């Protein structure tokens, strides 16, 4: 059970995740799932729910960190069009594997959150857009949804409240870009996943040009706790402007990689040393990618940084999806940047000129650099090509593609220079 004293809260989404068979409705209900749902459906109205979520200070857990309550309040009412709720379960950001655990171990938490969000937004049809590779997770979700329908937790007139909502799982086809909310919408509409420019924002014109809210799995899974304990309760957890707990997917050179949910504001060093069993080698990491592969890298000087949205921005990076990739001194940063460049060149949708042409250019330059075949003049070309992609495109994929290359050039200029000089000599 999550303590009602915010000071004692250490985890929210993962609270019941270790309970065996929690994915089964019977077990989940025995452990409190859906217990507060009737109260919400019968006693809360839409404004109250949105107000509580606003008060909670919850910020989107998918990467951009946009305040959830605010996003919900942007949805226009009485447009004559249906409003859609889409759960972004495309979890494709390299290094991120948190949503997957929620879906496969505690799917009813997500479903409950979606019903509550759907009720608040007046949604009749909701979708979970799940990453194509998550075959087993999609199966678990579908089984859970079937159980929920059978128990009248989904479908017409949920638990006799008069509210009806249908929930469908849609599997993606393997494109990273479909995790971007407007590309996700395009893909769900049956088109190639290419981001739309904004405005109009999905809240006004999204799925089939109707008002649409797209939320991350972790975000939606936090809603039941917020409504049960109140917005103020959630706001008191974590750090200022970064309320609540956050799941961090830690990978790389640590002794116990994995998902760890901690209150926000927990120092990076604490997470790595106390939870992940410390670094494999050495005492401080050589480089850390703190928010998924698209986030600019940090180095040892930021090792004690508290994990909040603001502190990471101040350090020149971002919290992103909370995927922390740790590199110790054995890491070949050029190889890592080259590998990430390959990923972005492969995943660029091809719409915008800088990204379509730039990601391929970066990759080809990085291949030469890694192989020691780059000229010294190529370093400037690399920097120019990367710098002028970021922020010039419809979506942020180009920013993500530029980040590893620019971080490598910024933090490890000697290594880069050495690789150029190495073969020229």
């Amino acid at each position: 059970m999550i303590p009602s004293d915010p000071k004692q809260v250490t985890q929210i989404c993962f609270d019941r995740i270790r309970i065996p068979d929690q994915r089964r409705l019977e077990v989940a209900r025995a452990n409190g799932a859906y217990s507060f749902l009737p109260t919400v459906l019968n006693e809360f109205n839409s404004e109250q729910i949105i107000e509580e979520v606003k008060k909670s200070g919850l910020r989107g857990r998918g990467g951009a960190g946009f305040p959830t309550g605010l996003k919900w309040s942007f949805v226009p009412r009485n447009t004559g069009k249906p409003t859609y709720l889409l759960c972004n379960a495309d979890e494709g950001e390299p290094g991120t594997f948190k949503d997957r655990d929620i879906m496969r171990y505690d799917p009813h938490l997500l479903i409950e959150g979606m019903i509550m969000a759907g009720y608040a937004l007046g949604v009749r049809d909701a979708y979970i857009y799940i990453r194509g590779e998550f075959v087993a997770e999609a199966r678990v979700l579908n089984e859970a949804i079937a159980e929920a329908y059978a128990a009248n937790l989904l479908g017409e007139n949920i638990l006799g409240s008069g509210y009806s909502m249908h929930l469908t799982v849609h599997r993606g086809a393997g494109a990273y870009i479909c995790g971007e909310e407007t590309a996700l919408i395009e893909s769900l509409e049956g088109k190639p996943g290419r981001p739309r420019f904004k405005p109009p924002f999905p809240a006004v014109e999204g799925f089939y040009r109707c008002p649409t809210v797209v939320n991350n799995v972790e975000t939606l899974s936090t809603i039941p706790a917020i409504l049960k304990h109140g917005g103020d309760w959630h706001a008191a957890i974590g750090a200022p402007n970064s309320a609540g707990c956050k799941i961090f997917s830690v990978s790389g050179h640590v002794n116990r990689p994995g998902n760890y949910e901690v209150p926000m504001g927990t120092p990076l060093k604490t997470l790595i040393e106390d939870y992940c069993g410390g670094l494999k080698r050495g005492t401080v990491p050589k480089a850390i990618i703190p928010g998924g592969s698209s986030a600019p890298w940090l180095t040892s000087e930021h090792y004690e940084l508290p994990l909040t949205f603001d502190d990471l921005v101040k350090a020149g990076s971002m919290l992103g999806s909370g995927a922390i990739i740790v590199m110790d001194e054995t890491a070949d940063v050029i190889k890592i940047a080259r590998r990430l460049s390959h990923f972005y060149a492969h995943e660029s949708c091809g719409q915008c000129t800088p990204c379509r042409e730039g990601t391929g250019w970066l990759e080809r330059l990085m291949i030469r650099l890694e192989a020691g075949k780059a000229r010294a003049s190529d370093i400037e070309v690399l920097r120019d090509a990367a710098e002028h992609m970021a922020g010039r495109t419809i979506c942020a994929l180009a920013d993500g593609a530029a980040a590893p290359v620019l971080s490598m050039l910024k933090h490890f200029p000697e290594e880069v220079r050495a690789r150029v000089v190495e073969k020229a000599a």
Partner: protein
Amino acid sequence: MTTLFIDDKEITVEPGTSILEACRRHGIEVPYFCYHPELSVAANCRMCLVEVEGWNKPAASCCTPVSEGMKVRTRTEALKKDREMIMEYLLIHHPLDCPVCDQGGDCKLQDYAVEYGPSKGRYSEPKRAVINYDLGPFVNTCMTRCIHCTRCVRFANEIAGTGDIGVLNRGDHMTIAGIVEEALESELSGNLPDICPVGALLDKPSHDLARPWELSHHSSTCIQCPNGCDIQIESRGEQVMRIRPVEGSPEPFICDRGRYVYDSFRSPARILEPQIRQGDGFGSATWEEAFARTVELLKDKRVGILFSPYWSLEGLMSIRLMRDAVFPDAKVAFDLHRRDMRPFAFEEGFSMTTEQIESADQVVVLGCDLRQRLPLLMLRLRKRSRQGRPVTRIGAMNYRTNMSLSNDALIRPRDWHAVIARAMEQVQQLGKTAAGMDEWMASVDGRHEAGKLLADALMADTCALIVGEEIRSHEDAASLIYGLDLLMRACGHAEEGRDGRNLVPEAMNAQMLSAVFGDVRASAGELFALAQAGELDALVLVGSDPVGDGLFPSAAKAALERVPLVQVGAIEGEISRYAEVKLPAAAYVEIEGTFLNMEGRVRTANKPVKSLGEERPLWKVMMRLAMEMGSEPPVVSLEELREALYAAMPEVRDACNSVECDACLIRVGRNRDARALPRKTAEAFPLDVVSRYSMYREGMWARASELLSEAGRIHALDDVLVHPDTLAELGLKPGPLVVESFLGRHTFDIGVRDDVSPGVIYIAKRGVAGDLSDVTSARLVGCGGDS
């Protein structure tokens, strides 16, 4: 209105305008590739980046709406670098083959590379090459040059409505492709090379033939359909290289018929010198000899005059002047698709502009293949359908429109009366009526449910009625149009400013033809019948081909077996084999002249292409004919001719003198007394015959054009089509069947398609099945016997 500052210049535009549009309207140059004012915004080229004060990154100006007080900068050091980089990215995979690329010299990429690009690219990795796709007879592809702006994809989706171009793959593997092994299914495909900002899509017929700077430009009016688009003819010496739309004219695009007809200007079918029949062939002659023969054939004879409505107003006026001077009793005919020559309650021509039709609350199309007849109007209907506005259609054939119709009903031409009567009943129930309606309804026995769709649409505040050839060529057209007029008047769609009555004319200049020739016109069929009955001694044909086109080919042939033909014109048709004399007149692109389109807009052609042979402007030929026949020529100069025209139609003078010529519309004629009631005559045969108008093969110019003929072959349907139920009822199977009509028995290969209304024989290929064009009803019988 929103006020913003662009480069410190205060600018006021409508709210919602994009920054780029605001810049374009105020002459501030912002470079762009993917943006096109007629297409949806894609925002993918990123060339149009600008800086907005207070924003942390540059914004794409094409997709960023203006806001009050916004401060925009279009020229800063950072933007200069950004544009340089965009050019560098774009040129990574673009081949440096400008010297052999047709676009060179007229290429956005080339221009911007000079203006905004770095002097040297730094990309030194491998380049890519892309496989070309076959996009039909008019579009040449070189996809390695593509910069992926997706203008062509959006054009195919939004303007052509065909959606047969798409994007394959991602990242720098992205390619633009058509549907494999299939030509573009669009009558607008020739616009793709214009839309493409680089040399990826190029005009195929003119490919590798000329450089942009070698071409001289001529402005003229296209007369290939009643829409009368402005055209720019590009020639090198005597060679016409291509035709393109004119920027800033009412239509930003032109159709393939108007664009690719140009190869006929220099085809062997042109009449370039006077000719006199010698045995089975023709021999060259001097003008004197040819006129001597003409006088011999026409002097003191009973003459019928047939002419094409496609001449300029001046040319048409000269025909009238010549007739009055030389053959004051002669009947004239100019419409090859009209069987009923009684006055129509509303004459041919449009009461609305195409812009008004685009924005009307309701549009009803009655019996018209607009995509073939008026492709540019079809484009506007497609636009309105994209905006969710309704379009209703009633007719004998489910013509391909490349858009979704909101309502659609298939009927037989003999049902038109019942459709209109059903609509009248419904509007009367709602208290809307007009004097004469009861009488009209009482003359019709049946009621057809399709009338509900018509009546429903008439309830809207503004309703555009587009009446097509199925009604115009109906044997009882005058009563149908009177019936529609009653409906429109009853529902308030005939009042000044809300007039929604539009009758698709045969050709250009309809308003002038009904105003100037209204008192002497006859149907072409009538003239042929008179000739056949021995009541005419000769026919004068001024640029028309009743054997190859129209609804009277059999009658024309029968008439010409009996009487001699004098042909005046710019191009030969199938009728030319009957001519005794051929007198050359200049083609429409070779004259200075004035034209009227269906909306009544005055179009002027003032920079003609050079003539090739001895042809003279039509008015000179007509005046010379008058002289040779012993009359004083009514006019001796173009100025005098124009005065005569202006005397007959003062509003044309006003329009020509106005600075806003496009806004002066010549009004369509109305005949208040045209109160034709439905005729009660039964059709002779059980099935109705409807024939198709194909833009690729209708008219002498199109048939003389190899380019259009080739496209016609690609887009051809089966010869004759019927609904499967029609055959099932008769116990027949598709294949060779006998069509029995008043012309006798003909065998055709009959195909089935459920796009044809049951009870209708649809002649899809008029030229092949030309012998049926005269027929309105027929019977189908098996080949073996008389079943």
